[in-house]
C-alpha cells in the first residue's frame, strides 16, 4: 500500500464496459472464494466483539446500570458519548448519498452504497445506548406516543423526546433510501447468480424489478425526493442531538455554536471512518480502478474542511468561556486545560486540531498509510471530543458537591468495543452478501464517461479507452429472427 498510485481526474481508471464493471462488483458476492483469510479474520474478530456486546448487555440487564462508571453528578457518560459518536459516524453516509447527489457530484457513485451501509450500522450501534441507558429497555415503547390506559403521552417539549423522533426517523429514512438503491442491484444479482439459493434470494429482494423505463422514471423521482428530504434530515439529527446539551444550563454544554459544530464533527468522523474502511477494502478486493486516488483525495479534503470547522468550534468554546464572563464557564475551561482530565483535552486538540492539518499536503493525501492513520486518529479525536464535552463537564459544576471524578469501568469499555465488533461484523457481512458498490450508478457513470458528456472530469483529456469497450463486448450473433 505504500506504493503511490497515480492521481488523475479519471474516475474509472481501467478500461471497463458494463459487463466488466458488473463483474468486478458482483463477484464479491457470487464468488465466495474471493473472500480469503483476511475476510474470515475480520469477521471472526467482529463476531467475538458481538459476543462481548451480548454478554455485557446481558450482565447490564441483570445487574442494572450500576455496572457502569456513571455516578450522580456524572449521570451521562460512556453511554451518551458512544451514542453521539456512533450517530455522528453515520452522517457521512447520508452526506455522500444525499447532499452530493443534489450537487451532482458523480464521484460519489462508487462510494455511496458503502457509506450508506455504514450509516445504517452506525445508527444501529448508536440506538442501543440511550435505550440501555434508560435502565429498563423493555419499556422503551414508553418513549413513543401510543394510546394507553394511563392517559399519558411523552413530554414533547424535551430535547430527549426530540431525539427519539430524530433518530428513529433518521434510521427509517436511511434504511428506505439504502434499500431503494439496492433494488435494481438485487435484480442484476438475480440475473447473474448461478446457484439456486442466490437466484431465489435476490429475486425475492428485487421484488420483480425489471428495469423498465417506467420503473426508472419513478425511481429517479423518488430517489431525488429522498435525497432532498434526507439533506435537511441529516442536518437536523445532529442539531437535535446537540440540543440535548445546548439547551441545558450545564457549563460547557450551554453553547449556541453546538448545532453546526456537532454536524461538522459528525461529517468529520464519518469521512474518517469511510476512509478507514475503504482503503483496505479497495486494496483487498481489487477495486482500485473504481475507488480511485481521486476519491480518496476528495474525501481527505472534505475531512480537512470539516476538521477546520470543528477546530473553529474549539476556539469558540474558549472564547465563549472567557468573553461571557461567566465564572462557572471559565472555571470549567480552566478545568479542561489543567484539571484531572486535561490529558483528554490536549489529546483531543492533537488528534482533531493538529494531526489532520497533514491533509493540506497533496503528498500526504496520496500516501495511503498516512491517510489511514490520520483517519484513525480523527476517529479517536472525535470520541475524545464527546468525552470532554459530556462527562468532563459534569464533573465540574455550580456546586462544590458536584465535583466528583468519573472513572469508567470494565463494562463501559466492553460494551464500547462490543459495538465496534458488531459494526465490523455487519460491514463484513455487507461486503460478502450485498453489492458493496452501486452497480447501476457506476454503469450510468461509465455511460457518461464514454460519451464524454460528464461534468466529472472537466480537465481530463479524453480517456484513452474511449472506444475500447465496444470491442471488448462479447460478440453476439445478430439474430434478427426470420
Amino acid at each position, binding site marked *: 500500500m505504500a506504493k503511490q498510485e497515480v492521481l488523475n481526474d479519471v474516475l474509472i481508471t481501467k478500461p471497463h464496459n458494463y459487463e466488466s464493471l458488473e463483474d468486478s462488483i458482483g463477484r464479491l458476492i457470487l464468488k465466495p472464494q474471493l473472500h480469503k483469510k483476511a475476510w474470515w479474520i475480520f469477521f471472526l474478530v467482529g463476531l467475538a466483539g458481538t459476543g462481548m456486546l451480548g454478554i455485557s448487555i446481558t450482565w447490564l440487564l441483570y445487574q442494572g446500570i450500576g455496572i457502569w462508571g456513571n455516578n450522580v453528578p456524572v449521570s451521562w457518560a460512556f453511554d451518551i458519548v458512544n451514542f453521539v459518536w456512533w450517530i455522528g459516524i453515520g452522517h457521512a453516509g447520508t452526506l455522500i448519498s444525499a447532499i452530493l447527489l443534489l450537487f451532482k457530484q458523480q464521484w460519489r457513485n462508487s462510494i455511496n452504497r458503502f457509506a450508506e451501509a455504514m450509516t445504517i450500522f452506525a445508527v444501529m450501534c448508536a440506538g442501543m445506548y440511550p435505550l440501555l441507558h434508560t435502565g429498563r429497555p423493555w419499556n422503551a415503547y414508553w418513549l413513543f406516543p401510543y394510546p394507553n390506559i394511563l392517559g399519558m403521552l411523552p413530554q414533547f417539549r424535551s430535547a430527549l423526546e426530540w431525539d427519539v*423522533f430524530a433518530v428513529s426517523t433518521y434510521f427509517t429514512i436511511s434504511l*428506505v433510501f439504502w434499500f431503494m438503491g439496492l433494488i435494481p442491484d438485487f435484480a*442484476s444479482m438475480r*440475473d447473474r447468480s448461478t446457484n439456486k439459493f442466490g437466484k431465489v434470494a435476490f429475486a425475492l429482494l428485487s421484488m*420483480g424489478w425489471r428495469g423498465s423505463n417506467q420503473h426508472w422514471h*419513478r425511481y429517479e423521482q423518488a430517489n431525488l425526493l429522498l435525497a432532498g428530504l434526507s439533506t435537511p*434530515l441529516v442536518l437536523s439529527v445532529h442539531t437535535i442531538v446537540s440540543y440535548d446539551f445546548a439547551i441545558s444550563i450545564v457549563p460547557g454544554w450551554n453553547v449556541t455554536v453546538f448545532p453546526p459544530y456537532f454536524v461538522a464533527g459528525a461529517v468529520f468522523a464519518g469521512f474518517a471512518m469511510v476512509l478507514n474502511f475503504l482503503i483496505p477494502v479497495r486494496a483487498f478486493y481489487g477495486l482500485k480502478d473504481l475507488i480511485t486516488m481521486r476519491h480518496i483525495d476528495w474525501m481527505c479534503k472534505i475531512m480537512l474542511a470539516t476538521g477546520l470547522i470543528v477546530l473553529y468550534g474549539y476556539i469558540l468554546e474558549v472564547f465563549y468561556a472567557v468573553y461571557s464572563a461567566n465564572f462557572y464557564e471559565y472555571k470549567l475551561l480552566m478545568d479542561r486545560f489543567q484539571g484531572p482530565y486535561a490529558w483528554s483535552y490536549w489529546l483531543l486538540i492533537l488528534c482533531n486540531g493538529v494531526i489532520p492539518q497533514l491533509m493540506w499536503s497533496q503528498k500526504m493525501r496520496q500516501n495511503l498509510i498516512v491517510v489511514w492513520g490520520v483517519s484513525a486518529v480523527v476517529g479517536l479525536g472525535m470520541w475524545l471530543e464527546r468525552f470532554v464535552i459530556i462527562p468532563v463537564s459534569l464533573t465540574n459544576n455550580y456546586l462544590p458537591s458536584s465535583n466528583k471524578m468519573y472513572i469508567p469501568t470494565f463494562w463501559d469499555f466492553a460494551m464500547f468495543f462490543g459495538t465496534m465488533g458488531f459494526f465490523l461484523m455487519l460491514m463484513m457481512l455487507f461486503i460478502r452478501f450485498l453489492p458493496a458498490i452501486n452497480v447501476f450508478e457506476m454503469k450510468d457513470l461509465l455511460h457518461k464517461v464514454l460519451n464524454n458528456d460528464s461534468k466529472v472530469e472537466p480537465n481530463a483529456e479524453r480517456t484513452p479507452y474511449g472506444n475500447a469497450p465496444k470491442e471488448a463486448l462479447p460478440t*453476439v450473433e445478430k439474430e434478427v*429472427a426470420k
Partner: protein
Amino acid sequence: MSHGYADDSPKSFGLVAEFDTPEKLISAAEKARQAGFKKLDAYSPFPIHGLSDAIGFRDVKVPYLVFAGGLVGAFVGYGLQFYAHVLDYPMNVGGKPLVSIPSMIPITFEMTILVAGLTAFFSMIALNGLPKPYHSIFNTPGFNRASQDRFFLAIESGDPQFDSDKTRQFLAEMAPLSVHEVEA
C-alpha cells in the same frame, strides 16, 4: 413457456427488440413513438436520460404524493403535540406558554420528513406494481442481460397498431441485435 394447458397458440405479450447501446434504444424508442405506437416500454440496466421523453412517458404522481405525505406528516406531528400539551393534559412548565411553537418544531419537522420519505418509497414501489412475481417480459430470450449490458424495446400486443409481422419488420429496420415475439 407452457403453463400446462393444451392451448397451443399462446397469447403474445408483444415484440421485443434487443440493442447494445443506450443511444440505439433511445433512437428506436423515438421512432416507435413517432410511428404512433402507444403501448411501448424500454428496459435498461441503468436510468437513461431522455428515454422517457423518447417513449413519451410522463408521470408526476410520485412528487405530488410525497408533497401530500409531507403535509400529512406536518399536521400529524404538530397536531399530536398540540393535543397532548394543550388539549389533553395542559401542564405549566416554568411558566412557559402552553402553545410554545419553537419547542414543537423539531418533532413536526421530523414527522414531515418521515411521512414524506416513506411515501416516496412506497409510492414508487406501488406505482411500479412491485412486488411482481411474474411478468411476461422475462420470457424474452436473453432478457437476463437487461440488468447487465443490454437495452430492450418492447412493443406490446395490446397496442392498437400492433401487427405481428409488420411490427417485426418495423423493429428489424432499427438494426437491433435480435427481435423476438414474446409469449404472455
